[in-house]
């Protein structure tokens, strides 16, 4: 027998769990500590926001909320590596990426607070909305990439899916299409080890999730998803080659879901505390902070000042969300079609009449 094809999956890490450099080929952006500090500050802001959002849910001021605790490095790296013209297709917890792209925290709260206006967000108007049906966003991103190819636009589409989502037809279909058409599409699998209660080991027999891209003809890389420098390096590379017509890429960001799946979940039912405890030792903020402190670019004082600043910003956002008036009742009709069909006008009038009788 001869070999028909062979492959290997590389793993990328710059900072170990303690924040020590494990490679000496630091990329350009990471040599500029000011830029790293800005990224760290964004990650740190996301964590403050996330904690506040969970607290709002616990006190009945927010609906079910999907926390992003532990995903900050992966998400902020994705957002910061993209151009504003690129298209982002998130699942539903990539706030770090979206804040970098201009989405306001109050808009995240609006969505989980039961108001569609959250998805009419301040980020790029072409970005896809939050996507609840698992992995369907992958095909939307690949479709966007197809549009860019047809129109010869130097733009890239990026989607995020979880380890569980990478089991779905749509994930495979999207990378398959990207391979068949050489699309400018980057599929990021944020592997946080848990799909609600089902562990990564029950999703697939594949040794890595990154290697799923091999079958589609894409370049693949596994990255330490808790290492901002590695994640950003991988994203820069994937986006650059996609933009230059070299096709799609699958990036597996290995991280850990430090929170419950959503506020409606209780992860203590299915995973051992010891596992979570050990995951906290590898979490993304600590290692970047340690690195920046070692570079004399950050200090406890900076940390304290910035945390206080984050609290203030988040409070303003929370208040804006809490003070937003409920949409008028007829809003449920007003975006179903570009123009309300005659057939729906009677129902809209009924709802309005019912509402007016109450006042």
């Amino acid at each position, binding site marked *: 027998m001869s070999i028909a094809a062979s492959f290997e999956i590389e793993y990328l890490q710059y900072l170990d769990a303690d924040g020590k450099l494990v490679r000496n080929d630091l990329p350009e952006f990471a040599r500029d500590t000011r830029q790293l500090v800005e990224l760290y500050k964004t990650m740190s802001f996301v964590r403050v926001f996330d904690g506040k959002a969970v607290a709002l849910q616990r006190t009945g001021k927010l609906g079910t909320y999907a926390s992003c605790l532990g995903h900050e490095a992966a998400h902020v790296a994705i957002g910061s590596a993209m151009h504003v013209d690129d*298209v982002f*297709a998130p699942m539903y917890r990539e706030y770090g990426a979206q804040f970098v792209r201009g989405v306001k925290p109050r808009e995240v709260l609006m969505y989980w607070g039961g108001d*569609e*206006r959250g*998805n*009419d*967000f301040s980020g790029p*108007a*072409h970005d*896809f*909305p939050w*996507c609840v*049906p698992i992995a*369907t966003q*992958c*095909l*939307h*991103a*690949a*479709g*966007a*990439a*197809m*549009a*860019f*190819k*047809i*129109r010869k636009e130097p733009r890239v*589409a990026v989607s995020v899916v979880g380890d569980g989502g990478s089991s779905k*037809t*749509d994930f495979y*279909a*999207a990378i*398959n*299409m990207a391979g*068949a*058409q050489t699309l400018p599409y980057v599929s990021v699998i944020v592997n946080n080890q848990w799909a609600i209660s089902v562990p990564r080991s029950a999703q697939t027999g594949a040794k890595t999730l990154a290697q799923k891209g091999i079958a589609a003809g894409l370049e693949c890389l596994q990255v330490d998803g808790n290492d901002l420098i590695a994640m950003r390096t991988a994203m820069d590379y994937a986006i650059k080659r996609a933009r230059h017509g070299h096709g799609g890429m699958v990036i597996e960001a290995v991280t850990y879901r430090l929170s419950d799946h959503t506020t409606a979940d209780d992860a203590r039912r299915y995973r051992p505390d010891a596992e979570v405890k050990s995951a906290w030792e590898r979490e993304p903020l600590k290692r970047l902070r340690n690195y920046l402190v070692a570079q004399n670019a950050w200090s406890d004082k900076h940390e304290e000042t910035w945390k206080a600043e984050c609290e203030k910003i988040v409070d303003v956002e929370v208040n804006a969300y809490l003070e937003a008036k409920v949409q008028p009742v007829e809003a449920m009709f007003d*975006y*179903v*079609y*570009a123009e309300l*069909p*005659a*057939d*729906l006008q009677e129902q809209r009038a009924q709802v309005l009449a019912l509402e007016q009788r109450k006042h």
Partner: protein
Amino acid sequence: MAQVTLIEALTMAMAHEMAKDPSVVVLGEDVGVNGGVFRATVGLSDKFGPLRVIDTPLDETTIAGIAVGMAAQGMKPIAEAQFDGFVYPMVDHIVCHAARFRTRTRGRLSCPLVLRVPWGGGIRAPEHHSEANESTFTNVPGLRVVLPSSPSRAYGLLLAAIRDPDPVVFFEPKRIYRQYKEEVADDGEALPLDVCFVLRDGSDVTLVTWGAQVKETLEAAEALAKEGVSAEVIDVATLKPLDFDTIHESVKKTGRCVVVHEAPRTAGFGAEIAARLAEHAMYDLVAPVERVTGYDTHIPLFRLEMKYLPSVERIVAAAKRTLAAS
């Protein structure tokens, strides 16, 4: 003016719109060099190239999901579901996304795609190639569900569907793809969506139908006329949103209504029309509404399929029952 079949009229409409609007693209299985298994896209690949007439991988989920993504980013994709029975893997993307993007984003994004679905039985095809599954989509807010029944309406309604700013599921009655030719001018004139077409005026009974059954229903009206019964025939054309006013006006005049469709009866779209007549036209009716439909069974394989589909005989008998009742 060209004499064209229904399917040629569809090709003509797509070619017209693709020449006029660079954002219009066609995608599906075998739509490229092969021109589609029914030849609906024949010649388009030569004219517009493989980037606008895209042979996708053999996966319906891909076709629907890619179409949604393209439509949300400024393209006007026309996706082909090779056969009605293969549409189910597409439903997730059409129902959860195409139909909801405008609502979900408060109008920031929309999804102006057309899903073309060769539809219905009567062509002696294998299993899963003969489904009348329009009701899968008529309960979905945000969609238009359109079914042409002649070459000129195929041309005009497909143009309207492509130009519509919202997603349209465009069912094509494949049984009458090549049944007859009609003069259709390639003038880019669309027909209105959301309206019924009155195909024959009558005063005794209203026959309401769509798609391939327009043929049998018109024949039934002709047979009834020979017996002195004047039947009005309405082609609903756009099932959703429904132009109930046209149906109601007709029933005000005739007092009788027979709804004809080849989909199974229970929760078929005829049930919606009958319910609306009960709500709004009870006192105009002089006889119970009749439905002539497929049975609540799977459409049989082709040795029996013509016994499943509504026949002229069944339509005439139903019309006569409404006349006997009053």
